[in-house]
């Protein structure tokens, strides 16, 4: 009787492939497959995108090891990707850190994302693929929450909206604040497609509606007042009237990314800090009182730093992007709004931005 193992050995002979160069070729081939899939997605649309992104979802499906338990409800939506490359994706994740999944966005390069409060749609500031040597052009897009029916909204100039690229919804899901041409805050009526400028002349960004929709908080930098960039948190009525500074420039330095508490009484923000000072997440009452820093690390030496505060729907926690200084990774973490204690919900193997926390049903 023929020994089949021996037969196979003899048939194959002394052939002894080495893995060194093959590993490089295999890695390149996987990258090529990924690029081909992206190109295909542009051609055949969202169906192909779903298939391609499914790979990513699978890739993370089993990553439970770094996920502490959490009692929070709702869903995080954020942009994740290599900070040094023009490749990123939109993700959703349950607030307890489970069920990280990608939301298809075609071949767009994402700059900012915001799910509507009613959970129906997602607004994107993003760029379509741009010619080599050119710059991306930030445009406004809307799509359904599952990534379907992606449409470009003609709200920006052909060369794109300018300034800090952020977008946020009014509580009734009918209006969007977006950066416009960079010298003010613009609001778009989603149904009519008309937009209007609420502020101008200053460097304003990060506009967010209050929970009752009557006011807007934003970050304003006034070079005429302070030659060094030193953004402060401002609040105005939703029609642009009665704008006034909330934070004290003697205390707050580079205060940006305001976030309203659900009861509308407090605003958390990112304190960029200054040399000799501290950076972190800070909070102030809407009447300007009780300003305090919740987390702090020494300016310039933070190994990790929190950005992008967003409140939990019940106001019991503030979620932040806990960034690694080299932008190689991010954790989504929760900050206690009373004690400032920070605990990690989940580590992510990429840099993340544009964090939001939705009340709606968690991923299933």
């Amino acid at each position: 009787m023929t020994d089949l193992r021996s037969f196979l050995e003899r048939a194959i002979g002394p052939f002894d492939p080495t893995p060194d160069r093959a590993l490089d070729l295999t890695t390149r081939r996987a990258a090529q497959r990924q690029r081909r899939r992206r190109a295909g997605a542009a051609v055949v649309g969202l169906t192909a995108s779903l298939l391609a992104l499914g790979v990513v979802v699978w890739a993370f499906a089993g990553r439970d090891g770094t996920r502490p338990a959490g009692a929070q409800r709702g869903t995080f939506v954020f942009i994740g990707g290599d900070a040094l490359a023009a490749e990123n994706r939109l993700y959703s994740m349950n607030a307890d850190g489970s069920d990280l999944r990608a939301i298809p966005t075609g071949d767009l390069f994402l700059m900012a994302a915001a799910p509507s409060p009613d959970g129906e749609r997602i607004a994107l500031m993003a760029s379509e693929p741009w010619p080599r040597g050119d710059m991306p052009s930030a445009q406004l897009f809307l799509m359904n929450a599952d990534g379907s029916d992606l449409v470009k909204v003609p709200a920006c100039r052909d060369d794109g909206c300018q300034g800090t690229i952020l977008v946020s919804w009014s509580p009734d899901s009918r209006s969007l604040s977006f950066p416009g041409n960079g010298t003010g805050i613009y609001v778009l009526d989603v149904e009519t497609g008309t937009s209007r400028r609420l502020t101008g002349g200053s460097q304003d960004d990060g506009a967010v509606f209050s929970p009752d929709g009557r006011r807007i908080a934003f970050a304003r930098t006034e070079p005429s007042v302070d030659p060094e960039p030193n953004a402060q948190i401002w609040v105005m009525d939703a029609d642009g009237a009665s704008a006034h500074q909330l934070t004290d420039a003697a205390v707050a330095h580079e205060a940006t990314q305001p976030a309203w508490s659900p009861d509308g009484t407090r605003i958390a923000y990112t304190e960029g800090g200054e040399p000799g000072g501290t950076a972190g997440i800070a909070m102030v009452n809407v009447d300007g009182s009780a300003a305090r820093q919740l987390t702090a690390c020494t300016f310039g030496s933070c190994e990790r730093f929190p950005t992008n505060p967003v409140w939990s729907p019940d106001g019991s926690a503030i979620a932040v992007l806990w960034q690694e200084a080299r932008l190689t990774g991010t954790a989504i973490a929760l900050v206690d709004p009373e004690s400032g204690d920070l605990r990690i919900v989940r580590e992510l193997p990429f840099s993340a931005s544009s964090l939001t926390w939705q009340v709606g049903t968690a991923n299933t």
Partner: protein
Amino acid sequence: MMLDPAGRDSFETFFRAHYPSVVRALVVVSGGEPEAEDLAQEAFARVLERWERVRAMESPVGYVYRTAFNVNRNRLRHLARSLRHSAVPAPEIDPATEVEARSELRRVLARLPASQREALVLVEWLGLDADEAGRVLGIEASSVRGRIHRARRTINEHLGGEDD
């Protein structure tokens, strides 16, 4: 393919441990070294894309083989279509014989249907039992045993050995 450093390290370790053996085994399936290397790299590339999921499987290397077999079947179908649409008459046996047979043993192997060569690789090379091989191939264990039996008989006929 967004793996963290630990994921990349574990894939590289897996690759280095199994690549040589997988390529050698795929010579049996594909008929030649270049085809085997190409198949193996394509299979490992597909595994890399979903490594976090594959590494958690009971037999990641079994998944590599299954992927390679699927790629090879597509390759054979493509070859067959090409031959049908060309002026060159299709060969009567597996297109893998297009690759110059390097030895009499390879010529014997080339006479086996791809399905039997796949079963040989899994059972005789990888050491899987019939149940495990059946799960990789998506067939019953009895079918695996049948393929091995027929492969052995063909090989013995051509090499003058004894049937079992």
